[in-house]
Structures are given as C-alpha cells and as structure tokens.
C-alpha cells in the first residue's frame, strides 16, 4: 500500500453527490443519538458478562457499528484504537464469504483474529454480527477484545520470529451459522487456549453484546425506515468530515516531523529510530511513514491495518476533545504514505505479537510533529503502557493467567500546567488501571507498594506528573512476560523542559539476584520473588527557570521533589 489507504470511504468522499438528503436535520440528529446509545448498551453488556478481568476490569476491548459499506457509524466509549480500522476486518471477512458464494446469513457470528486482518495480534479476537432487515444486511456490529490465551508459546510472547508462534489464527470463520453454533469449531476454539472456560465466557459475552447492540440498531432502523436511516448516516459522516476539516484548517500548512524510537527488537536492546511527518495540505493531512525501517526479527512489527487505526486515533483527537464519538467521516481528509514491507507495514508471516507498541510509539511521534506545528495542542510525551503477564498453577493445580497494564507519570501540557495523576495514552484511553484488591483476590500475588516516587518527574515551568513505583510479590512459583517500551528513552519534553525518569522493571529473586528486563517471555519466578516496576515520570513543558518558588515549595511539601534536586534544578527558588 502506498497512498490513500486511510481514505477507505470512497463512496461519498468529499461530500455526497447527486440526490439531496432524504432526511431532515432533526431526524438525523435523533438517529445519531440512537446509534451512540446502542453502542453504549453494547459496552455495558460486554463489561457485565465478560469472564476475564482484562475485559471487565481493564476494558481492553471495544466495539462499533458499521454500515453495509463497512463505514464506522458509531463506536462505544472505549479503547479508541480498536475500532478505527475494524471496518476493514469486517469487509475482508464478509467479502470472503461473498467470494465463496456462501454469503452471510441472519444469525451468523463471525470470528477473526488474523493480525493482518484486524491490525494487532491474535489475542485480540474480533466477533462480528450482521444485522438483517427483510433478508438484507443493513449494518454490522463488531467487538474486538483481548483474550487471555490463544495457544501461543506463552500467554504473551516477546521473542517470536513469525506469526505462527503467536497463537492460533482464526482467519474469519462462522462460529455460529444461521443461529446454530458450529460445535466442531467451538471445540477447536476451546481446545486452543490454556483457559477454556474464560475463553468460552468471553466469546459468549462478545457475541451477546453484539446481538444486544444490533437489536437496538435494528429497532432504530425499524422506527425511521432504512431510507431515512441511511440518509441520516450520510449526514452524520458528512458532519464528521466537516468538523475534521475545520480543525485541520486551524493548523499552519507545511510539513512537521517527529521522531519515533524503538529500543528493542524483541531479542536485544537496539535503537531503531525513524522519522514521521505530518503534512497539513489544502485538502487535508498527509501522514508520511516512508522513513520506517525494515521489519525487525522480533515481534515489534505492525500490520498496516493497525497503523491506519493508530493514525485515525491520533488525528481524531484533533477534532474531538470531549466524550464525542468517532465515525468514518472524520477520516476522509486523512491520507497515508506508507512503505510496503516496512516494520509498520509488515506482511505475514512477520512476527507482530507486540504490534500495539509500535502503534503507541507511532502516535507519540505524530504528537511530537503536531506539537511542533501548534505547541498548545499537545502535551509532552506520554509513557507507553508497561505490560506484565503472569501465570502459573493455583493450589488446586488450575491454570491462572492475569496481567497488569500500567502507565507512568502524566505529561505536562502548555495550556493547563503540571501533569496530574497518571493517564493511559490516548491510544488506549478508556482502558482502566488495575484494581489491586481484585488482582490480589484472583492471583497468588501481594502488592507491597504503589506509591509516587520522589524526584521521578521531569522538571520545567510546568512539571510532569510524578512517576510511581509498584512492588509486587509472587507468593507461589509463576512465570512472567514483561513488555517495557520506555526503558531507555523517557517520554519527550517540550519547550525547554526536562524529561522524567525512564521505565525500569526489575525482578528480585529470593536468591538475592536482581535483574532488569525490557522484554522477556516466561521468565521463572520462584515463590518470594518481587517485581519492581519503576514507572517513568511525566515530562515537563517550558524552562525550569520559569517555575515559581511557591510551586517549587509545594512540590517539596508534597514529597514529589527532594531539596537536593530542587536546589539543583530550581536554584532561583532559593535565592534571596
């Protein structure tokens, strides 16, 4: 793919031509509300019925509705990066069944986790439910959510060399045909996981939630008629496009660049820098990723479908700041220049288990570029999510798997000031941090500390939010996968401020040894081991010399800053 891959909405790009709208603006607005409410019903059902904490507690999943041209028409208020390109997955699976002549029937439930179709990795399993009216497909509901295990070499891997080591691949199959479950496939599905019960529970939760959402959409279509509904969809998408164009017009035209740095290829620490560019042009915005390097030997590559989603996610945040919903219309002014076969336009069988991380880092690079165009539109850099997966057997020899996804100190931002409490980066905004009491109740682990760390943040006129240190103790023997993506390069600072500390994940074993890992798969932890996560500090904005002495004193009083460091970084606060 070379250009224009972002603009999949060719049907009406640049505004609807031909026949005028068949819907009044009031009805269009009502239908928009109806779609958003349906998306939220889908979210509530998913959360309330899922079996895995990574879905119900953490919300590592999201869903949306697509029209029959596979355009996203509304999404649930959850993980933005999941739904941005799920329409492409729906399209690909549906087209397969059209090509075979079998087509899609009412009551079919399709399952796909092929990373080169869904954009991320096999753990993210997408479920698709078609909606029928009078025998015709009128819309699709789809939910992608993280399954705890898909029969890879470990519950989460960092050292795979091809996609086949990363779990079973469902290329888009009908797990239910016309309302009847395919028991052969279902057995295959539950046999290809270390956690068959929760996999089955989560699958049913996803399918049930899609059905709930689709019922609401069909009721909406029934109330207003298909013709009005589809005309309203055009109005809604056109409004999204107009908003995006309006926001883009506020930026100075030209080319702005940011730098992306990977620190690790899955096997060894190695700096992999490349440049990304954002070009504000007359008819929209061009994202240039042609500088991206070749695929890496380890699983830090990403399929282009995921990259499209990441870019949409980054650019959506230009147009919407509040709780608003994305739709395909917003994406129309976006164009991508990609280099086919690069690490972020990777082809099967490249390993992609950690695909989310190149996507998060890519969004940070784009943010840096945008911040250089308009400094008040972006904060300093966000921390990446540090991920742990741990697993073992409980006292009844049952397999358990759980995970911790956690992020460091929040960045400062020019218009508002200091960084506050930690925040997930925009790409996984909507994902919730762990509840430690739930985690303790479900795992043989004890949390010893989760406190802010002194002198961890980046100083500046506006300081970053404090980093924090989490200490976990393994009370039984277990195995651990670590993904730490800011272990060398802390999040970027802006306008002359400083960066905070880097991320550091240390394992203290009972024999007294201490080892730091950036990425490791299934390292063994004897009972009594401790995992120390020293999370990065938020980066600052503006020169430290401009911070007021009162603010420095408040940082000292709060214990964010030691006097020694305060005197070093803010000498002006101690003068006179």
């Amino acid at each position, binding site marked *: 793919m070379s250009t224009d891959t972002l603009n999949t909405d060719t049907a009406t790009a640049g505004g609807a031509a031909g026949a005028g709208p068949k819907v009044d603006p009031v009805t269009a607005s009502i239908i928009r509300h109806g779609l958003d409410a349906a998306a939220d019903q889908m979210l509530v059902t998913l959360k*309330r019925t899922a079996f895995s904490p990574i879905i119900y507690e953490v919300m590592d999943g999201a869903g949306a509705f697509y029209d029959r041209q596979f355009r996203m028409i509304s999404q649930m208020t959850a993980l933005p990066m999941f739904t941005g390109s799920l329409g492409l997955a729906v399209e690909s699976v549906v087209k397969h069944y059209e090509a075979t002549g079998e087509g899609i029937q009412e009551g079919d439930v399709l399952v796909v986790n092929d990373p080169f179709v869904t954009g991320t990795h096999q753990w993210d399993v997408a479920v698709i439910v078609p909606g029928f009216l009078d025998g015709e497909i009128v819309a699709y509901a789809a939910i992608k959510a993280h399954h705890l295990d898909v029969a890879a070499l470990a519950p989460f891997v960092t050292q795979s060399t091809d996609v086949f080591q990363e779990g079973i691949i469902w290329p888009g199959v009908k797990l239910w045909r016309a309302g009847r479950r395919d028991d052969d496939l279902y057995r295959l599905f539950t046999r290809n996981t270390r956690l068959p019960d929760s996999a089955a529970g989560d699958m049913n939760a996803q399918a049930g939630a899609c059905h709930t959402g689709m019922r609401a959409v069909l009721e909406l279509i029934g109330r207003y008629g298909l013709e009005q509904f589809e005309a309203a969809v055009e109005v809604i998408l056109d409004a999204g496009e107009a908003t995006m164009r309006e926001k883009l017009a506020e930026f100075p035209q030209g080319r702005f660049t940011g730098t992306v740095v990977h620190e690790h290829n899955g096997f060894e620490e190695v700096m992999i820098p490349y440049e990304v560019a954002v070009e504000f042009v007359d008819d929209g915005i061009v994202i240039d990723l042609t500088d991206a390097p070749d695929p890496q030997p380890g699983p830090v590559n990403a399929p282009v479908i995921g990259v499209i989603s990441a870019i949409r996610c980054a650019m959506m945040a230009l147009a919407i700041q509040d709780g608003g919903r994305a739709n395909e219309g917003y994406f129309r002014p976006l164009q991508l220049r990609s280099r086919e076969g690069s690490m972020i336009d990777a082809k099967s069988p490249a390993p992609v288990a950690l695909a989310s991380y190149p996507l998060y880092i890519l969004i940070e690079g784009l943010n840096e570029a945008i911040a250089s165009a308009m400094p008040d539109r972006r904060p300093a850099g966000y921390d990446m999510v540090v991920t742990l997966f741990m697993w073992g057997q409980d006292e009844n020899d049952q397999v358990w798997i759980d995970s911790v996804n956690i992020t460091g100190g929040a960045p400062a931002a020019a218009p508002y000031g200091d960084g506050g409490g930690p925040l997930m980066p925009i790409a996984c905004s909507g994902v919730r*941090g762990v509840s430690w009491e739930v985690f303790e*109740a479900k795992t043989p682990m004890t949390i010893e500390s989760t*406190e802010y760390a002194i002198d961890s943040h980046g100083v500046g006129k506006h300081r970053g939010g404090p980093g924090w240190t989490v200490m976990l103790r393994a009370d039984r023997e277990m195995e651990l996968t670590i993904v730490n993506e800011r272990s060398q390069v802390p999040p970027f600072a802006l306008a002359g401020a400083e960066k905070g500390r880097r991320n550091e994940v240390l394992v203290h074993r009972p024999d007294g040894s201490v080892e730091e890992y950036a990425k490791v798969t299934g390292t063994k932890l004897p009972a009594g081991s401790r995992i120390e996560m020293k999370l990065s500090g938020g980066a600052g904005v503006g020169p430290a010399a401009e911070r007021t002495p009162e603010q420095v004193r408040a940082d000292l009083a709060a214990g964010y800053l030691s006097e020694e460091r305060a005197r070093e970084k803010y000498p002006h606060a101690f003068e006179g």
Partner: protein
Amino acid sequence: MSSRIGVDVGGTFTDLIFFDEKSGRVTVGKGPSDPTAVDAAVRGVVSSTLAPERAAEARYFLHGTTVGLNALLERRGAKVGVLTTEGFRDILEQAREERLDERGPRVWDHLFRTPPPLVDRPLRVGIPERVLPDGSVEKELDADAVRAAAAAFAAAGVECVAIVFINSHAAADHELAAERILREAGFDGPVSLSHQITGQYREYERTSTTVIDAYVRPAVSGYLERLESGLKEESVDGECLITTSAGGCIAFSEARSRPFETVMSGPVAGAVGSGVLCRELGLPLAVTADVGGTSFDTCLLVDGRATLKYEGEVVGMPLQTPWVDVRSVGAGGGSIAYIENGLLAVGPRSAGAVPGPVAYGRGGTEPTVTDAAVTLGMLARPTLASGLELDVEGARHSLEPLSRELGIDVDQVAVGILRIAGASMAGAIRAVSIEVGEDPRDGALIAYGGAGPLFSSLLARELQIGTVVVPNHAGNFSAWGLLEQDMVRSAALTIVEPLDRGGLAQAESTLAGLFAQLDERAATKVEGEVVKEAEFDLRFIGQEYSLALGVELEDGRLTEAPAAIAERFGAAYERNYGHRFDVGVTIVSVRAVERTLLPRPSSQGFEAEAGAARSGEKARAYSFVTEDWLDFEVIDREALRPGEEFQGPAIVLEPTTTSYFDVGERGVVHATGALVVTTPSA
C-alpha cells in the same frame, strides 16, 4: 394521626407538600431555591405555606436535598486526613489512570488532567499494617505511626479523618483499632471507616467513597442541624427524616454520621412516589419521566420497585453505595438549543432559573426548550397558572437565528428542539430499561416535574408506550414521593463464597453480623413494624460483575435451597443479557436490609374544587401527530373529577405544571386524581 410535611429541594424550586391525615387534604407550596442558604429557603416555603398550628400537627418532616452533592460539586468540603496502608497513599490520585471527570469520560482529550484529589498528598498518610485478601494479618498495625499521624493532622487543622486499609472488607480490626488510637490521641472530629461505609472491595472506589463521606460531612451535618433547629422555630416538631440515594429515609441524626448515603438522593423521591402509584394503579412495569429546569431523570419500576445499583460515579468520582438506578440527561425546560457540526442540538447547557427561558422575560436571550414549547402554543395561555406572563413573541424571535442557519422555518425549529430533547430523554429511558432486559413498550410512562407532562405525549409516541400517567400535583410530585417512604437501612459485605450449603451458612452468619451493625447504627428509634430482608450479589464462577437477587429470610435463616437460588439467578441473568452459563454460581456480597414501615398517607385524597368546571375554552397549538396547528381543549385540572373523561387534543393546566395531550389520546381521571391516558400506541 400521621400528618406529614415533605420538602424537596430542586435546582430551581423548593417544593412542599403537606398531607393532613384528618381531612385527607393536601396543601402545595413552592418557593425559589437558594443554593447559598438552602435551609433558609426550606424554612421560607414552610412558613409561607403552613400556619404554625398546622405545621405543628406534622408527625414527620421528610426531606430531599442535594446539599451533599453541592458540597462536592463546588468543592466546599472539609479538610480531610486519610490513613491508609503504607504503600497505598497515592491510590486516590492514581484513580485507575482514566480520563474521567465531572464532565464524563473524555477518551479523546489529549490535554486532560486528573482533577485535584479531595485530599492533598501531605494529608494522606501510610500506616504500616497489612491484611491479606483472606483476612489474615501479614503485618500488625503500627500504633505509633497512627499517633504520629494524629499529631500531624492536629497541626494541619484536619476536621475529618477517613481510614481505608487494604482488604479491610476481609478483616476490619485494623481500621477499628486505628480509630481507637486516634481518639486516644485526642482527635475528636468525625471518623469515616471504609469497612463500615461500603464493605466492598476495589481500593480506589472504596477510598473515594470513604473520602467523599468525610469530605461532605460538615456541610451535610451542619445543614441538617441548622435545618432541624430552624424548623422547630417554624413550629415543626415531628421526626425529621431525609431520603437516601437508595430510596427510603433515615433520621437526620443518622444522616449526619453517614452523609455519603444522601449524596445521590436528589431524584429518588419521585421514583419512590411513582412506585406507590404503580401499586395503586396496578401497573407491573413503568418508566418515569421527571423533567425539571435543567435535567431529565428516569428510572424503571418493576412491580412498583425501582432498580437499585451498587456503584457509579458522582462528579467523576466513584461512589460505592446502593442507589436507585436513575439515569439523567441534561435536557429540561431550560436547556439551550444550538447548532453543532451543522446539526441542531439541545442541552446540556441550561438557562436555569436565572436568566431562564426568553419567554420568562427575566433577561434570557438564548432559545430554550420552553421557548420552543411556547412558540408551538403548548402552554395554552399567555399567563401561566402561577401568574407568570409569557413573552410569546420574544420566544419565537429567539428561534430565528437557528431558523436561518438551518434553512427551515421557525415552527420547524421549535418542533425539532422538542423532538431532539425528547429523543435524548427516550434514549435514557431505553437504556434504563433495556439494560435490565425490560422493554419500555410493555410499560406505562409516569410523567411529572415542571415540564414532564409537557413531554409525555412526545415520549410515549417515540417509545411506543400505550399508557401515560400524570400524577396529582405532578409539578411537586417529588415532594409527594417523600411522604411515601419507609425508613430503610442497609449494610453489605463482600464474602466471595460458592453458592452451596457451606456458602449459605457463611452468608447467614455474615447477615447476623450485618443486622447487629444496623442496630448499633440506629441512633433514633422510630416506631413502626420492622421488616428484615436479605440480598445476594451473585455471579457465575469465573465472572466478576454480579447481579443482585433478593433471597428469602425467615427469623434470620436463609430458607431457600442453593439450587433454587441458582435457578432464579440464571433466569434473571438470562433476562438481562440474553444467555446464561452452565457453571456454578458464586455469592460475592451479602446485603442486610432493615425497613421500618412508617404509616402511609391514606391515599392522595383527591377532590375536585367545588365550582370548577370545564369551560370549553380552546387554544391554537401545534400537533405533532397531524403536523399542523389545531384547536386544543384547555382544561383547568381542578375541574376534572374522578372518573371524568377527556381526549386529545387537549392541554390541562395546574399551578405547578402543564400537560399536553395530542390527537388520538384518551384520558380518564383515576380515583387518586391521577390522569391515566391511553395513547394510540396501545
């Protein structure tokens, strides 16, 4: 004799209802709310409505207020100190790393910053101690550290202390011991203990709830104290009771020590009153439509009972307490209409009481929902029953800029504003019902609040609901609902046991402890029959989220077999989510509920005013059915007698609200005075 006064404080008005048990008569009062002096406004409406000798007859004074919520919204709470497990002092600020504040979720907001926590870091103190999830003690409580914290709190002028130790739901000893040590060290302010506040796990949510309790305590406590003594001066001598978020009321004295229970009580009384109405009218399923000046509130009633939920967020902060599942959207009579991305939008911004809608002539310039209704003639007369003169021309004029921008005429803009506001209200009604597996089409719509009966026709059509009920005194119905409550206390504890014989035995002994705890809590004994109930939060093994299910309790014993409870749970789960699982069931939490039944008002005791009659008056108003202007019959509500029939198009006027009935709707007056209207959807 059990005459009683109900006073409900809303954002715009303070409403009063007095029920005289001897005569069965009802007296209605209304006065402006004053957020800066809420208790004075309450006294004002009491003294202006009731002569002292009548006020003195009231055996109960029942109250609904948002004082606690306002303290949170305006950040005017106490200086709070937090004692927590060493290593966890920053939980309150880490807040699960979400983009969530009083505006709701902000998933796209790059520049989002977490709101400042209610307690700054220097006042959040970690204490060496540790309890594990099974209740075993890994580290004993360090008494010296508590003493040191007490000294630091005293030096900092801390007014209230919240104590939240990790896993205290499994073993509360350390929280209790820490309180004791604080007292010994001389701290004499209020202390909130997390295990007594929620007893449920999730440390951030429990911390947030406990801190909110401590934070609003002086505001709520001081308010209730001032109000109680002020009411005495107005000759009110009855038992003072306040509504909780879960519906039901508690004594002022108890609310002063558990203020978090009242934080979300604002829209609850109307739900309780609607429940009673459902039982009187024999409605198995109903949804409410309470439309005020700035917001729309709705809840679902099954067999006259509102659905409860056990967690939620208030101004972006989690609150783990039972509350009536009322959904609110920012759409009311004062909601402002504007254009967003080329589409017409309504609310959540409101003109409020000041400046109010353009039609009220108090300086409002932006078009509101009320202005749209006035433009369409839906209020029938240019003078409201309350005496307010409407500026009809001004209202119409305010819609013109929208008309120009959208390219549709002013009438169509007005119709659009009402339909869009109605659609977001309908969305909330669908959410509150469909999420628990009920279809609003099978139920009735109960409309009240100042603007509820104006919207009932539109909502019934949008939702295909066949029956609309407009209760008596609909504009003050929330105050009426206050009179219909029992005293209710509840306490819950997370236990996580399998639903089997052993689990039930465990639940039974937990219940005994919870009921004992409730008895200790009751500072004031109010006379009345006491009913004890038990409820489980259940889930399938392997799941996390649970469903609440009432279980049979006789003399403190759980009488149902595990299989019977499991079957009822499976059925309820299937109704909610469309499927069930063939795996075992877990008891997550046990809840003890104690109701003290208060004597009820005998009925709404309705009589039409003598001499009032239907005059045959007509007014031109817009019909949403024929999409044209028609003659509507204008009826004064006091002229409608029980059993009397009427039919749309008609507009019914009364001092507190206006009801609009469109073409094809047929109404009859119920014995209680409620208007029961059958719509063409029936």
